[in-house]
């Protein structure tokens, strides 16, 4: 069969054709909303019209088979409208209240997980990991699955002081808001990468490789038409590997996962915050990384017990102090926690007013 004629630079289709009629009618005229259950909210328009949203968890990697099934459900209960959230949840948009309970029953029967709305854990933002990324130092989907099996109730039912945004990045490139999440995992390398001199000369652009290093650890090696790495300066970021595949930093023995905490992107109460280091290293331990899951659980439960209502993880830590955070969670404080990269002067303590 002949192919249809291609078009270029048409951009995305206009969104209006994908909006349920009740949304088209009340666009920009919403009055308020109520969270009815952890997986159900209703938005009310100034006109009195309502739309119910049923939120469902997603592993983000979806087979077309699953998407067809979601489409069937959306046809049956939602007039053929469906959306996804910025955290990759699936949202079924119901215009007729009569369809809410049957949709929920059908979703439950088919094994879907509803929840994620309000002060709890929503879907986990994560990267590709071993599933599809060339630079991954761990697997992201696997870590997410291992964590969320453990924290399942915090998605479906249990309340926390405020929302807790979890994220997983499979390397320090952090294709996900790991640097500003409540609790996040980021995979790190810990070994200076070996340099394959012969391949570097053939496939890499030496000045680009030198410029890629944030600590100026890379020098040219003219004799071999390659480069050398100063082992005392290398912080294993892997940026040289990104520009030069012949410096393969991936290491089954050396790669692992750090935990960072206390970041946020919204400005409610306090400004957006960066996540800070809570635990510098755990060995990769697939398929379930039990020590990491346990450490995250300790942080989550300490926060749940200790924080005031509406405090995000970072706001709770700001109030109690980092010394208290380490005491209350029992996490070990190590040399790696003290910044010796770019921000040391902003992170050291300058007063004797700390807690024991």
């Amino acid at each position, binding site marked *: 069969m002949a192919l249809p004629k291609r078009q270029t630079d048409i951009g995305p289709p206009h969104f209006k054709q994908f909006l349920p009629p009740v949304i088209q009618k009340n666009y920009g005229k919403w009055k308020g909303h109520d969270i009815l259950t952890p997986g159900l909210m209703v938005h009310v328009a100034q006109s009195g019209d309502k739309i119910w949203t049923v939120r469902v968890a997603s592993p983000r990697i979806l087979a077309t088979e699953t998407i067809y099934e979601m489409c069937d459900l959306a046809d049956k209960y939602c007039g053929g*409208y469906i959306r996804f959230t910025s955290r990759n949840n699936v949202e079924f948009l119901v215009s007729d209240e009569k369809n809410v309970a049957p949709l929920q029953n059908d979703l439950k029967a088919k094994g879907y997980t509803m929840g994620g709305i309000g002060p709890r854990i929503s879907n986990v933002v994560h990267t590709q990991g071993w599933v599809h990324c060339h630079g991954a130092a761990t697997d992201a989907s696997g870590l997410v699955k291992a964590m969320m099996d453990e924290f399942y109730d915090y998605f479906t039912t249990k309340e926390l002081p405020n929302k807790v945004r979890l994220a997983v990045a499979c390397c320090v490139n952090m294709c996900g808001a790991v640097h500003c999440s409540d609790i996040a995992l980021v995979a790190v390398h810990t070994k200076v990468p070996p340099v394959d001199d012969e391949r570097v000369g053939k496939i890499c652009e030496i000045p680009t490789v030198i410029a890629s290093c944030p600590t100026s650890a890379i020098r040219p090696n003219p004799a071999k038409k390659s480069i050398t790495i100063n082992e005392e300066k290398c912080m294993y970021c892997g940026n040289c590997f990104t520009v030069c595949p012949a410096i393969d930093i991936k290491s089954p023995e050396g790669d692992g996962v750090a935990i960072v905490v206390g970041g946020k992107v919204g400005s409610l109460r306090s400004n957006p915050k960066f996540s800070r280091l809570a635990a510098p290293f755990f060995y990769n331990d697939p398929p379930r990384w039990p020590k990491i899951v346990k450490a995250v659980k300790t942080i989550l439960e300490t926060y749940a017990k200790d924080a005031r209502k509406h405090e995000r993880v970072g706001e709770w830590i700001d109030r109690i102090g980092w010394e208290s955070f380490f005491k209350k969670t029992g996490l070990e404080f190590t040399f790696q926690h003290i910044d010796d990269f770019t921000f040391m002067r902003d992170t050291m303590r300058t007063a004797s007013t700390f807690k024991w």
Partner: protein
Amino acid sequence: MKKHVTPLLDELEKGPWPSFVTEIKKAAKTSEMANDELGQVEYSFKTKKGYWKHGGIVGVLGYGAGVIGRYSDLPDMFPGVTFFHTVRLNQPSGWYYTTKALREIMTIWDKYGSGLTNMHGSTGDLVLLGTNTESLEPMFAEYSSRGWDLGGSGSALRTPSCCLGPSRCEWSNYDTMEACYNVTQEFQDELHRPAFNYKFKIKFAGCACDCVAASARADCSVIGTWKGPILIDQAAVKEHEKQGMNITAEIINMCPTQCMSYDGKELKIDNAECNRCMHCIAKMHKALKPSGERGATILLGSKAPIVVGSLLSWVVVPFIKMEAPFTEFKDLIRKIWEWWDENSKPRERIGELIEVKGMRPLLEAIGQPPVPQQVKEPRKDPFFFFKPEDFEKVFTKDKY
């Protein structure tokens, strides 16, 4: 089709959270690619190492973006993923779909690719995971003829994204959905043909809740805000209290500017002191709402840690009207790009460039005056530059 034994991944089909392994297995029933993807991921779990090669240059004719080349490092063991390219389809604003459109996208994908997707990628695109080089052109013809185009990749404008804004939210201060659509259409060339020194991301958030993480994940963060007072429905305040809210503890004491008071009868806000953080409005959503002039704050620079540390975006333009056709915003973006293009090194993001050159040249290039809203605090060192014109325009002898 070779059946891979996957004891480690099978473990991740247990437990209540939806499993990505189950998804890969579903696709693997009919796709050789997905089947060998399953095998390679199991091998990674076993050896604790990834086996994907760097992206080569692949794409569709006339574009330099939208497809990311991906190849297995173990093609002999897993021939199905010898080529396993990613295709980014530009998502519609707010990630809304009709089932008709979504089915059509998936049917084409089943024909040309692995049957695996990301709904959605970190930047916002609908990500199609795994196809070979020959499939790219016919697949693009099928998608583009039905109204779908590719997103950004590489050193280009990346696919802009937005929160759902006025479509289902009472707080949006401008039409994020239309802004995202309109700006994406305006800059199709910059999106599809990488001509920048590095990537450039734009995200549109309707308010300071920032549901698209614009403040942390966009070189240009457009965050909705307003200028008028917060309107108070005192009866609804009582209603919140009746439903169990401790207004003093949860609202008054948590207000960052301490501009609110409540005596058990009347809630008061000193609007001149309010910094519009959204806490009270989000928590007392039935009682409080913004009013007056609407628009957005433009912040620049946020990015992940590579190369010299992560950045949150910095306020550059405290207030801009964001109304269709968004001419003022587009002009601003063009000026920012021009300055960035003239001054940056390869692989240097706008935030890093501002750090190197200073904020002043950027502000001068885009015609913005210095205002206290741009800084958290003034500098603490006594090392500042003066230009001759500063003495002519600012530090004149009659004043200083």
